[in-house]
């Protein structure tokens, strides 16, 4: 298929439709409202469901209800809206329902601003809602990658019966890039024999997260924990850049920031400084094992983010605190420039700018 020029938010919407994400609930919030606007026109064409709810609280509970009947239900929002969805996400994880939620992250805390940010890393990766659960988290760094990750997100949500988050900063949502919608082929999924789609010919199904018996609750907790361990084994995705030649610095960055780092690495190479990049594509599970291997030759690592360093602790854990981990980031909607990253790397190397 030929490439088309599309805005990130619209491309995500179209990719979800092509992935069978035909039941979409939303509440408007900048900078992702184009997803809803696109789908309000697109869903009727494909016989899908589009509904604008009264709040993100309601929307996320609509996801719970719809996902519980076995349809591919999903939503998009941005940071303050995602916070409101956390209640239901916890229930969705506990009831083992599949859903996909895209967070086009804006600045915070609080109402923050509408510019790009990576300040929701901890919320996405460490839980967000209450209780002992995790989400599988994908972080695209281009519109094309966002398009490619949507079908995978739906597949993994179904396969693991767990919420999957796709984290794009405002840049990914708002930027226009050429994209191609590829055919994706996944192995058959197990039947959704747990869904509440009518009890004809079978015993009633119950979608539930209430466990008053501590022994049964513990069994659920351990079942979920085993699921997250399996994700750590099977689902880690990352990209390496310039790791096939000598380097003394390893940058770690995801999303838009990773693209900035690639430019910085090219500039550093011009100055004879070998730097490489590890770009996590899955934020949970984090590519810790590969990080450890790649960190062997380096003097230090540097986490580059549009936050105050929310990913640093995962980088430190990945390298088992055997090497120094520095941080450089911009906040407030400001994006680090390649020049800033170059300067930071040189400073840490004692080479001055």
């Amino acid at each position, binding site marked *: 298929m030929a490439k088309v020029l599309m805005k990130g938010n619209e491309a995500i919407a179209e990719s979800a439709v092509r992935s069978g994400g035909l039941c979409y609930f939303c509440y408007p919030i900048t900078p992702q409202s184009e997803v809803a606007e696109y789908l309000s026109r697109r869903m009727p064409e494909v016989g899908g469901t589009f509904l604008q709810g009264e709040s993100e609280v309601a929307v996320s509970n*609509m996801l719970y*209800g719809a996902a519980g009947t076995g349809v591919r239900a999903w939503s998009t929002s941005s940071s303050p809206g995602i916070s409101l969805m956390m209640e239901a996400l916890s229930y969705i994880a506990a009831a083992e329902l599949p859903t996909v939620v895209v967070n086009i992250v804006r600045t915070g805390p609080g109402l923050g601003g509408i510019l790009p940010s990576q300040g929701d890393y901890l919320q996405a990766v460490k839980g967000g809602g209450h209780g002992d659960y995790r989400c599988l988290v994908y972080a695209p760094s281009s519109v094309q990658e966002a398009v490619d990750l949507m079908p995978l997100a739906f597949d993994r949500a179904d396969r693991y019966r767990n919420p999957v988050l796709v984290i794009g900063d405002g840049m990914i949502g708002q930027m226009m890039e050429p994209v191609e919608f590829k055919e994706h082929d996944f192995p058959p999924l197990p039947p959704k024999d747990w869904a509440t789609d009518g009890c004809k010919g079978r015993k009633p199904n119950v979608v539930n997260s209430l466990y008053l018996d501590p022994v049964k609750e513990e069994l659920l907790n351990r079942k979920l924990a085993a699921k997250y361990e399996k994700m750590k084994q099977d689902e880690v995705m990352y990209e390496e850049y310039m790791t096939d030649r000598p380097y003394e610095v390893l940058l770690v960055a995801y999303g838009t920031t990773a693209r900035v780092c690639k430019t910085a690495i090219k500039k550093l190479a011009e100055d004879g400084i070998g730097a490489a990049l590890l770009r996590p594509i899955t934020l949970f599970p984090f590519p810790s094992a590969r990080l450890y291997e790649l960190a062997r030759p380096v003097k230090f690592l540097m986490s580059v983010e549009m936050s105050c360093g929310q990913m640093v602790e995962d980088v430190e854990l990945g390298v088992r605190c055997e090497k120094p981990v520095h941080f450089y980031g911009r906040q407030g909607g400001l994006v680090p420039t390649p020049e800033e990253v170059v300067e930071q790397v040189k400073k840490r190397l004692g080479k001055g700018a």
Partner: protein
Amino acid sequence: METIFKRPEALAVTPTHYCPGCTHGIVHRMIAECLDELGLRERAVGIAPVGCSVLAYNYFNFDFQQASHGRAPAVATGIKRGRPEMIVFTYQGDGDLASIGMAEIVHAANRGEKFTVVFINNAIYGMTGGQMAPTTMPGQVTTTSPFGRDVAQVGHPVRMCELLATLKTPGFIERVATHSPKHIIRAKKALKKAFQYQADNKCFTFVECLSTCPTNWGTTPLKALDWLEENMVPYYPVQNFKDLEKQGGGDAD
């Protein structure tokens, strides 16, 4: 021998945890009878709330989802929009529906979601041990209104049927009571009509059931029935507020 009374197929064969004199059991049974009589059991999905009836999924014999506090109308919206062929009802108490879930119920009603809401109003939070609800009567003593509900501080009880009846969209809104055979027969008729409207894909349907809570009211089951009649019925009139049949359409002003 002719069978004149039996357990509805839509009720599970299990004892409930409800207190003696609680009217949840009566409403459960009426719902089950309606679904059986209309042949809807195999398409039914109930939504259990947070509250005393959180375990309702154990007491019915069809599919169920358990919702977070107050969100049952949003969950039901998701089910009904995702699979319109399902017969969906929420079962919600007064704290759930009229306090924490006020936004969800109002907007589901206003969108005209084609499911049925069964609203249990017993003027108190039951499960958490008898705290004041939005529907608690003026002067009523609860664990969080030990001197009686002071309307100067917390306002008057919320009348949900009246509130929702101000909306143009909903097609069926009725308040019934569960404290006497006469009222129970009327309640069953209202519930059946609500499910029939849903089966015909007509409109949003809402049935409020005035109910008792002898345990948290601090009284006996029999006295609780009298208390409902004497205190609740005068403030919460038992009547129909909206009916497609009477108004000749879903969008009459």
